[in-house]
């Protein structure tokens, strides 16, 4: 066994180019099982692209990804999910016309029976499974907001953003993944809501300490309070790695965020828009 198989997730030299545009440049990253890693960086620094490469939405241009001792580089999203990686999206991708329960069950795909005969004609056994799934989904929702569990059969679109984020996290958690990817869970929330959500996430993790989390976040309070370890990206490159205290005092990080006034030879490039990444979904 070489060194790479001991770590839970090992990302080596991963690059992603869109034409001539480097969204990720030779990214290296390692996480141990049970860690919470914060992924930070200015807009357009490649954070979401990294999630999309990791979950198979984009194929990496180069490099390799090993998850739990297995090479998962370039696998389709379906296989990544089966391997035990679940995610949330930057702009929450919930099916708003469907009920909360429906949305959570979409995340539970791997644990449901999809046989035609079973679904159409073995309705008694289906009903038993349904009741069990309903109980499980309600219990999960209760951790976040008991009210959601009560209204589980109402349309997801009828709830405010914070509740949709909670549902989305439940959708990712219901299949009991080994690695959870949270893409800016606090986007569009008030300060109080954000704190609530972070407490909920910590509660979930207290329930299963094995769960590894990578979180993309702009709110430094969040990063400070929940992460064990941080990676800072800028223009697709890792510029710093360490605990929150270490990165907060790092000169490169301050430059990336505040603009380097004292360094002349690195002109600030055009900030790339994270929105653009969303338009380029590979057909899956």
């Amino acid at each position, binding site marked *: 066994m070489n060194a790479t198989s001991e770590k839970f997730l090992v990302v080596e030299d991963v690059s992603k180019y869109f034409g001539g545009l480097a969204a990720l440049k030779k990214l290296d990253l390692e996480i141990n099982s049970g860690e919470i890693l914060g992924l930070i960086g200015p807009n357009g620094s490649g954070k979401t692209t990294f999630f999309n490469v990791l979950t198979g939405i984009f194929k990496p241009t180069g490099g390799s990804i090993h998850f739990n001792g297995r090479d998962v580089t370039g696998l389709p999203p*379906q296989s990544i999910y089966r391997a035990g990686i679940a995610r949330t999206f930057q702009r929450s991708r919930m099916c708003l016309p469907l*009920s909360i329960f429906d949305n959570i069950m979409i995340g539970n795909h791997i644990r449901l029976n999809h046989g*035609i005969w079973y679904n159409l004609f073995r309705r008694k056994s289906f009903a038993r499974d349904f009741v069990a799934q309903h109980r499980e989904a309600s219990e999960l929702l209760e951790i976040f907001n008991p009210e959601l569990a009560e209204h589980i*059969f109402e349309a997801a679109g009828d709830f405010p953003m914070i509740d949709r984020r909670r549902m989305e996290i439940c959708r990712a958690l219901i299949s009991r993944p080994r690695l959870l990817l949270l893409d800016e869970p606090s986007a569009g929330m008030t300060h109080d809501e954000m704190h609530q959500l972070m407490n909920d996430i910590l509660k979930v993790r207290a329930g299963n300490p094995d769960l590894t989390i990578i979180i993309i976040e702009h709110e430094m309070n969040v990063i400070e309070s929940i992460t064990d370890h941080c990676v800072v990206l800028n223009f697709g490159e890792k510029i710093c790695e360490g605990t929150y205290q270490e990165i907060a005092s790092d000169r490169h990080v301050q430059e990336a965020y505040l603009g380097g006034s004292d360094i002349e030879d690195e002109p600030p490039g055009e900030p790339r828009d994270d929105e653009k990444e969303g338009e380029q979904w590979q057909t899956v």
Partner: protein
Amino acid sequence: MKSNNEAPHSLLLGLSSAVALLAYTAIFMVAETEAAIVAIIVFGCIAIFLLKRFGKLAQINLAFRTHQRIMHYAVMSGVLILAAIFYDSHYTLFLIATVILYLVACLGMNIQLGYAGVINFSVASFFGIGGYTAAVLTMQTGLPHLLIILAGGLVAAAVGSLLLLPVLRTSGHYAALVTIAFALLFKTFLEVNDSLGGPQGLQVAGMHLFGFEFNNNIVIGDVDISFYLPYVILSLILAIAAFTITKRLERSWIGLNMDAIRLDETAAACFGLSIPRWKIKAFTFGNFIIGIAGAVYGMMVGYIAPSNFTFGDSLILMSIVLLGGLGNPWGLVVATSIVIILPEKLQVIQEYRFLLYAIVVTLMLLYRPEGLVPRQLRCYIPGWRA
């Protein structure tokens, strides 16, 4: 709790609405003059407006939800009573059977478009494939006719699989164009193909089940019953089966998967759903149901030609699905009845029906995109409470 108290009341209302609808349809069918028909339609519109105004429509809706089984039986018996009233009228029974068979085809289309979001502008072609399969098999072979109906569905599903590759590789408008092209090709193919009768079409033998000839009038004593009555009953059985399967599909993990890929393919893929797999299942299963309806239709009309299965006919079926409400089988029942019966009874609009449907569909999409009877949230186990 509130709905529980209202439930018995709503059942009464639901049942009386079924009776009223039966009476209304019967009177509509009997009406001969254009003035009378227009008057009846206007009366119907006012009645529905008033019901909605006083919140009764919502209660009727509730009756269908809370007393599903009873309401289903009520509607089934309604159709049978209607058929019994017009037992000797070829024309009316033919119309009823046509509506029911189109409904079956629309249920198939609903699985494709309403659930999985697979657009299909060649529904009439698959309906025609069922009909042509029935024509060839009834005239050339001695296969039992029940098997021939099944074969109609299987052949439609098999031919549909030819379209799978282009449909899966394209999306949105392009997928629509592929199916439009297929509809046009299908008609041309039939017209130039002499072994399938060319433009003149083919004769189809009447249904023959368990030693019983469908295409002979039934004479019991002095009463002469139209030979279309058995077709009404057979189509009703098919419709009940298609309806039940559609409903069960919706109330299962399969229906959920189809909804998920329709609403967000990327998110669905990130949770392990294979997009092609569910599109293929929906498309093939839908075509199977459409083909079965086409086979029975062919046997009923006795003669089919390419001009019965044009792109225009597909558009009519599409307008039914859009009018009724995507994903709602009950909406299809309402919409099929309106779209098929109205131009038949009101001959003035027969010529302008495409124009009329175009206007209606455009208005619907603009002002009520969820259709006449919008789809409700999924309820996996009817009557189940946490």
